[in-house]
């Protein structure tokens, strides 16, 4: 009987020391390094530089974000020919119900908006700069100069480039990539 007692005690001690590590022994997993911005809406406000009463807003809204349901609003942009507009962007996370334009501004050293026009007579010049050395464009504010009438597209891309922003599109993750149908009319 004594042998059994010793065997039992020894086996239980061994079991608890060596046999079973707990989940509390697991190392803590590091937080993700790259975190995507959840952006469900983007709005563009354009103000005619020669007539501040001519303000037009165009929106993209996908309430449930990427995947899931189709966007509920994807405006076509209408511009007057031969006009200069002051443009500003606003971004919104509809899932958390918060505007995140200021977040992008706060992290402007890590973000870049890229504008690409196709088959349309339009020049876009980014007018805001970040705090990098030398300063690099952000793209929340810009100047749009339309030419002759025509139809085409404006692609707006938001790149997230933490620590690797160089003023170009290549580095980093893409947080937004939208193609707005655009019409320039006389």
């Amino acid at each position, binding site marked *: *009987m004594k042998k*059994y007692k010793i065997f*039992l005690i020894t*086996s*239980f001690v061994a*079991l608890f020391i060596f*046999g*079973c*590590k*707990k*989940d509390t*022994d*697991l*190392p803590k*997993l*590091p*937080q*993700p*390094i*790259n*975190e*995507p911005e*959840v952006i469900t809406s983007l709005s563009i406000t354009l103000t005619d530089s020669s007539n501040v009463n001519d303000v037009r807003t165009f929106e993209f809204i996908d309430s*449930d*974000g*990427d*995947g*899931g349901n189709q966007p509920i609003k994807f405006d076509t942009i209408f511009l007057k020919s031969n006009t200069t507009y002051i443009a500003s962007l606003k971004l919104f996370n509809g*899932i*958390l119900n918060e505007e995140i334009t200021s977040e992008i501004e706060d992290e402007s050293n890590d973000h870049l908006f890229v504008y690409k026009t196709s088959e349309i007579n339009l020049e876009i010049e980014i007018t805001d700069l970040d705090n990098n050395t030398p300063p690099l464009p952000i793209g929340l504010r810009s100047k749009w100069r339309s030419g002759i009438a025509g139809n085409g597209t404006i692609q707006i891309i938001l790149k997230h*480039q933490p620590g*690797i922003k160089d003023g170009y599109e*290549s*580095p*980093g*993750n*893409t947080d937004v990539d939208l193609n707005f149908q655009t019409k320039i009319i006389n």
Partner: protein
Amino acid sequence: MNNIKQYILGFSVLLNLMINVSCNKTKQHSKWLTGETWKVSEVTIDGNSFGLLPQFKFDECDIYDEICFGTLIVENTSMANFAWQIRDKGSIFELSDQTQNVDESNEEAVSFSSSFSGIYNVNQIDKKSMELESDNCKRYPGKKVIFKLHRE
């Protein structure tokens, strides 16, 4: 007296087995992943299929002594690094993007890795297949994301 001895011995063996089986699920499930490559065969977000189906290459590691890492591979070209962990008796899987440098060459993989970083319930797992479910992926909070994976 013999009956008591047999009872104690039987009870202790049963208790050992119960404790070992229950507490080792974390280790057992992790072992099925370490050093292996698993292919994602299906991803759905709220029931809608997601087109990109990468491979998860899990590095060899000791889950209790170190953080486990792996490589996410998209179409054999774009790669991202991630940390992973199975815990809570094998019922939870966590994925955390750990890619240091992002550029054009790995953007697709990093986008996947960062978008789907999060904590998953393990719906099913064996040596060859696994199903994960989460409603708190970084890019899809509140949406039901389901992964089906098969070991290659």
